[in-house]
């Protein structure tokens, strides 16, 4: 049997195990381990599984994720998040789906700094989901808004995905940052439009409050949202003012959240205990998932499946349009079981010569690839972000997938727009390389 065939069988077996309700991180570890064993022999496999968990998790960028989760847990456990939504409901509660739109915007802002999609959706989910439920929002719909919202941030600078893409393709990182800006904002607009349309069809999914508030009441409520705004401002502003690196923003944000909630006299022992319980739980869960994903990725690498597919795409001699169509399916497929970074590292170097030969603008291509991978994270059968969200929020995976469906539809429309109007990506970046 060829390694490529073993790789493809491995992907199928992984799917079967996952639908047999094997814990996902361990299903990935199991398939990765057995597959690597078949291809490489036991000695190398033993070294690989003994090294990878340390090697992959002892990573600075990764360390930032639990810290952002901590920040979110502080905000939700101290009810500071509830206050934020109190304000939001006074201002936009009379608009149908208004709170969901506000959540999407908050996700976009938060993910922009955090740079990690599932950390964003979990953090914001912790804050927003109970609140939306309290305001009688449909759970499925609210979960969809949080999970989809989390994917926006990769496009909005600073973006680790673009930095990596720039390093491999020799495209200006500054230009990639600029290129992602309009698509990122548009994505948020598309989600908000989706929310408006859904709540028009199903008004009870995002009900408007009938209560009217005077301007004085509205302005008065701003005070309530102050602490959370301040925490966000520190996390985001810290990067833009050069106080810390994006990698350090998680620690800064969590620290600010603790201090501010202490000053607001919200963080007492029970809240702190709750916060720590939640954070440790989510951290353990995510680390087990990631360790598994990396072991699986090693197997897929030695199976040469990504090489096979990208080589075939490169060798097909396609025209520009057909090529882009194949690229769309390829990255949606990869987005199922690889993280954005792994996929970029493995495939972009192989595909890039074809991209250049076809005269496709590499900046625009980068935007499309990153966008596709984001979509892959939230589409069935495998959507990492949906898995982590459902795990953290205790909502069945099926419910989240159903809730996210309208947003995925919006994603495809957004993708088409980016595909057909490259200027949306290239306008700010100044067109060329």
């Amino acid at each position: 049997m060829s390694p490529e065939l073993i790789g493809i069988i491995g992907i199928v077996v992984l799917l079967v195990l996952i639908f047999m309700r094997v814990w996902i991180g361990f299903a990935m570890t199991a398939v990765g381990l057995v597959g690597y064993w078949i291809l490489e022999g036991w000695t190398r496999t033993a070294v690989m599984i003994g090294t990878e968990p340390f090697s992959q998790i002892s990573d600075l960028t990764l360390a930032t994720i639990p810290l952002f989760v901590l920040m979110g847990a502080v905000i939700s456990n101290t009810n500071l998040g509830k206050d934020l939504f109190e304000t939001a409901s006074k201002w936009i509660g009379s608009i149908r789906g208004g709170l969901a739109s506000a959540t999407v915007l908050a996700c976009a802002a938060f993910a922009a700094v955090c740079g990690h999609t599932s950390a964003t959706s979990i953090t914001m989910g912790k804050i927003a989901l109970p609140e939306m439920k309290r305001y009688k929002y449909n759970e499925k719909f609210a979960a969809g808004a949080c999970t989809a919202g989390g994917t926006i941030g990769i496009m909005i600078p600073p973006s680790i995905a673009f930095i990596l893409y720039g390093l491999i393709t020799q495209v200006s990182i500054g230009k990639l940052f600029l290129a992602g800006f309009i698509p990122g904002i548009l994505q948020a607009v598309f989600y908000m439009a989706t929310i408006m349309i859904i709540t028009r069809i199903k008004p009870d999914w995002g009900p408007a409050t009938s209560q009217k508030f005077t301007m004085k009441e509205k302005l008065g409520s701003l005070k309530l949202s102050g602490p959370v705004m301040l925490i966000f401002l520190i996390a985001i502003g810290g990067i833009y003012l050069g106080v810390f690196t994006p990698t350090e923003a998680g620690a800064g944000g969590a620290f600010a959240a603790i201090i501010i909630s202490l000053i607001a006299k919200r963080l007492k022992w029970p809240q702190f205990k709750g916060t720590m319980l939640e954070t440790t739980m989510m951290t353990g869960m995510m680390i087990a998932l990631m360790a598994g994903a990396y072991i699986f990725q090693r197997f897929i690498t030695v199976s040469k499946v990504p090489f096979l597919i990208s080589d075939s795409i490169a060798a097909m001699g396609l025209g520009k349009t057909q090529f882009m169509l194949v690229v769309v399916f390829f990255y949606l497929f990869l987005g199922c079981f690889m993280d954005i970074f792994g996929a970029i590292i493995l495939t972009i170097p192989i595909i890039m010569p074809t991209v250049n030969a076809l005269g496709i603008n590499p900046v625009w291509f980068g935007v499309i690839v990153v966008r596709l991978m984001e979509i892959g994270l939230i589409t069935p059968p495998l959507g990492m972000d949906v898995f982590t969200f459902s795990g953290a929020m205790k909502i069945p995976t099926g419910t989240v997938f159903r809730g996210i469906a309208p947003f995925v539809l919006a994603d495809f429309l957004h993708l088409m727009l980016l595909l057909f109007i490259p200027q949306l990506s290239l306008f700010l970046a100044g067109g060329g390389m």
Partner: protein
Amino acid sequence: GGAEGASGGQQGPIELKYNDFNSSGIGITMMTEKYLNEVETLTEGRVKITCYFNGSLIKYPETFQGISNGVADITYYMIGGTPGVHQLNEVFNLPFLGFKDSPSALRVYNKMLEDYPALQEENEQYNVRALAIHPMLPFHLHMTDKLCRTPADMKGEKILAEGHNAVMFSDMGASAMNMGPQDWYTSLQRNVVNGHFTHFVVPMEFKTDELLKYHTMFGEGGGGNGCIVYLVNLDSWNKLTPEDQKIVGDVFQKINEEAVTLDLGLQEKAFASLEAQGGHTIVTLTPAEMELWRKAAQPAINEWIEATESKGLPGKRIYKAITELAAQ
């Protein structure tokens, strides 16, 4: 199949995995792949080498462990990449050794490896041998907001630097920071750091040349070099016949020398690109100014010598030898 599959019998070719953290599709990796593909023909089908670029086989910090354990058979390795395994070989990473230029540094590195078996022994104790060795391009100082001519100018600056170089800059009163490449651009842009001690190709490749506008050149030889070795796992190596060992060894010698030529070409490209961009200030220091920096680097070097001697290794002798060879 990997090592075990290959050892099973003599029917198929021996398949070796080559690991490299560089991106595929760039000059150095394309050159390497071209030569390694020829091995199958040169050995008449007895040995086949598959390339894994982008660190897709071993994560960068675990490279030395991985080659020692045989996850890969041959690897591209930067001395210091897995900190702690090398002490004596760290001599190649010391600042201000006094090389005239890259080709002479290449000669000195190889002469050292030949003349001092203690260097190779440090690899062999971990079941690994260096097939070839070459210097990286010379390091110079690149700043975002000011030109630094003397070590005194470094006081209060925040510099991206690693290892002995980090110690050296701290000695000068700067803060040395070490962060992943993903944070370089943003950190330089936001002034988290304002300088980078590295060779000229790095700002070009990481696009930080949009930000680093002031360049201090420490002659053609630079203020330090990184060191690249091609390491082979000894179990894998001993599976080859002496004849095939010679063929593979020669191929890596060729790759090793061409890597330096390619690097110099890239450096030229980087200079041209800075020129084309405009707005860059590049200053080459005078020998007298260089001497100030060399003196300022001495405490960091002495720290290494002491640590090496304390482990019973000939740090002093090796340092003396390399500086003498460099001066010739």
